[in-house]
């Protein structure tokens, strides 16, 4: 019973869970009420994802009880969770791109009759859409839709199955400021109906803008649960990280400037063969960070891939330190001193099933002393690995553990260690802090700034405006494959950039 006399809808008691000896959840006791938005706050690796994945049936706890409406329940699979009315909106939405939204919504329904009357289903879904004022096209293939729309589709999927408890795992990571507002509206209306919302985040302002209560987790333990109204930002930060963060040092301006990356009249297509980069011109000088702001899917990925040699170019040219690298092979781009921190950390930047050492030599395995002639030198590889692990404070429980089992922060450190330890003059950093906690983000920011200080040129692609504003010298806004505006960071205004990102300024542009 809580102070308002409500009965807890869902409770966990004494949940313990560890992975290969690393404790992820340590004796967690927590109540979630109906009709509340309960924020779970914590750094990456704090154990919030583990806890909700236990509730969603993806993991099973080593110990502990889950009580739903006063009854002990066992949740052995996501399907069990579904039957119990617990649904989760994942960061990466499980979907079939070649299916329509409607087909994706009804996908996996077990209790549907043998023949499916699509028009009845469609009607039901439309009612839900109307009720919660969620606008999405039902007959469009999902692959063509933005992540924000896909997320709304997922919410409808859960509502169509009448989930009583909805878990959101960092839902705002990929959304524009406008989309975040829409999402918050939807979540509020779900709450009014008495549903329970569990909202995972590491963004403090979201805790205050949306939640009724907030539970802070750190290093696998629950620190405290409090009413959001009775707490302030400093206390939360304190609980989250347990110590004060160092203040970011002031950015020194570099004096010696020469262009490192020059992009002229660049055109390139995306995987579907549609023009995704539409006449882009950019220059980055040494000691400069150029931020690319934009909603995911507006050509950022194609741009970074074109520079890295991973995507062929239709026309235009790319110069790095005066050397023409237009449509060069990825190897030539690497050897010309371009380091690339890709957004797709686990699919492109790392090989998830291989250990850290194999991931650290991905780009220098051809060079001495890592290899000699045809053969790899395992002693040098070991030395190289231990040196980088120490230098970049990569925390691994075991030398041979697959990199995919590390926390997001440590995974990114592996990428950074590899990319920054190689000789380079240009760094392409694409979403370098996505999904990372405050401390890891801070660490990545420090590394990027120190690269800038050393005279490196950095192309920083991010959907986090705050990050762009605090790091960049200049910010270019990309929308539908075009650079819409380039502004000096100190004169930039977040709202203004947000408008360019969503082309609200389109009319003015013409």
């Amino acid at each position, binding site marked *: 019973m809580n102070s308002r006399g409500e009965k807890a809808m869902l409770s966990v008691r004494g949940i313990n869970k560890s992975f290969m000896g690393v404790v992820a959840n340590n004796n967690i006791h927590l109540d979630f009420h109906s009709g509340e938005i309960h924020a779970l706050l914590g750094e990456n690796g704090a154990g919030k994802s583990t806890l909700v994945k236990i509730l969603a049936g993806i993991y099973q706890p080593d110990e502990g009880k889950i009580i739903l409406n006063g009854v002990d329940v066992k949740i052995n699979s996501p399907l069990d969770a579904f039957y119990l009315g617990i649904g989760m909106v994942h960061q990466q939405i499980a979907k079939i791109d070649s299916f329509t939204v409607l087909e994706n919504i009804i996908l996996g329904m077990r209790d549907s009759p043998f023949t499916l009357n699509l028009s009845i289903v469609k009607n039901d879904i439309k009612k839900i859409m109307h009720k919660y004022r969620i606008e999405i096209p039902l007959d469009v293939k999902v692959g063509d839709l933005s992540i924000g729309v896909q997320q709304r589709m997922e919410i409808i999927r859960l509502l169509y199955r009448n989930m009583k408890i909805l878990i959101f795992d960092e839902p705002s990571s990929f959304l524009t400021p406008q989309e975040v507002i829409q999402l918050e509206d939807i979540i509020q209306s779900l709450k009014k109906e008495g549903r329970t919302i569990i909202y995972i985040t590491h963004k403090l302002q979201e805790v205050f803008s949306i939640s009724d209560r907030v539970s802070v987790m750190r290093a696998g333990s629950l620190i405290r649960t409090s009413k959001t109204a009775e707490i302030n930002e400093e206390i939360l930060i304190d609980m989250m990280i347990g110590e004060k963060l160092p203040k970011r040092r002031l950015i020194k301006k570099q004096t010696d400037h020469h262009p490192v990356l020059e992009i002229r009249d660049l055109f390139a297509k995306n995987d579907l063969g549609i023009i995704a980069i539409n006449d882009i011109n950019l220059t980055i000088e040494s000691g400069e960070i150029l931020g690319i702001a934009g909603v995911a899917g507006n050509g950022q990925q194609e741009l970074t891939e074109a520079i890295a040699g991973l995507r062929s170019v239709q026309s235009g040219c790319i110069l790095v330190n005066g050397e023409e690298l237009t449509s060069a092979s990825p190897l030539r781009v*690497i050897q010309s001193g371009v380091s690339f921190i890709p957004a797709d950390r686990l699919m492109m930047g790392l090989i998830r099933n291989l250990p850290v050492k194999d991931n650290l030599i991905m780009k220098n395995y051809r060079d001495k002393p890592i290899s000699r002639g045809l053969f790899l030198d395992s002693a040098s590889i070991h030395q190289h690995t231990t040196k980088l692990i120490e230098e970049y404070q990569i925390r691994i429980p075991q030398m041979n553990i697959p990199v995919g089992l590390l926390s997001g922060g440590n995974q990114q450190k592996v990428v950074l260690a590899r990319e920054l330890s190689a000789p380079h003059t240009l760094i392409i950093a694409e979403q370098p802090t996505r999904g990372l906690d405050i401390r890891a983000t801070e660490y990545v920011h420090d590394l990027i700034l120190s690269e800038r200080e050393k005279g490196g040129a950095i192309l920083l692609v991010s959907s986090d405006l705050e990050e762009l504003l605090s790091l960049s010298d200049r910010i270019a806004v990309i929308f539908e494959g075009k650079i819409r505006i380039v502004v000096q960071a100190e004169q930039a205004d977040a709202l203004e950039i947000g408008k360019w990102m969503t082309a609200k300024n389109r009319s003015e542009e013409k």
Partner: protein
Amino acid sequence: MNPFNEFSLRIEPRGFVQTKNQILERILSIVVALIAGGVILALVGANPLTTYQAMVRGAFGTINLWMHGNFYHIGEILVKTIPIMITSLAVLVAFRMLFWNIGANGQFVFGALTATYVALFLFNGNAVMPALVYLTSMLTAGFVAGALWGLIPALLKIFFNINEIISSLLLNYVAILFAEHLYYGPWRDPEGMGFPGTANIPEAARLPKLFGRVHYGLIIGFMIAILIWIIVEKTKWGYEIKVIGQSAKAARYAGMNLTKNILLIMVISGGIAGIAGTTEIAGLVYRLQQGGITEYGNTAIIVAWLSNLNVWISIGLSFLMAALMVGGNQLQITMQIPAAIALVLQGLILFVILMGEFFIRYRIRLVKKEE
């Protein structure tokens, strides 16, 4: 009440399974295979226990025979182990890069027929030529032929993005039927009294024996195994194979040339399968003929897959698979069981073991449907 309305079956991944349990599960699946096989045997009126006993005896011989220095049975297993082992190494190396070479059979056949050509026709059956010249040129030709045949699916993949599983599989039939054409037609031994097959290759073109019918192909196989192991574990190229196999996207990002690597891996894979065909001709059958060259490629794929693409495990499994074949063949002789039943038994045992592999990774649960 229909129970199917209340319950449903569900397949779920098991996640992490301890090694100890994995071993237990494998033993269990062998036991299940034997029981299932026993049922089949009982159905055809044979005593399962005595049949299994005969099978083991047929495969390995008896202690009594060993005491008297008779290792004929073990030798027979080794003779069959050689082609399975070499071909599974060929398959394994391509699978490591996630290039699904299902065409080892065809590459094997092309190696075999090219070696036959070299031995019979290229040197015109020259009996005075040294064995070394014969054998090195046959092995080289076998390698090249297998490699070229293996390159076809690689090129189709690279230029037209044609699925290599389909193309390499279909090329098997082309190779097998082409070989058939040769030994039925232009290459048929005129003195063979109508038997479909070429003439025997000259003495100098034959691989020497180690003991019994076991030939030097065994040594060649182990040399290939060591070579493959070194490539896979110790070289830059082995690292590239591993990375490409795990994630083509990451490999491209790391600047690896996928096209070059696909071509190379199929040269090696096809070439080794070609060598397997060559050693079979030069070491055992001495001519291209009906049967004897098409029964190993598919077994090798199963072996490579079951070994988890591990060189040494695949050698051990090749031996066991050969034992299963030899033991099954012996059944026809000793137990008067029809040949087909022996094959059914072999297939059944493999099938249950493969199913066991599935159950190591997944479980099936009976769940009650909720309202």
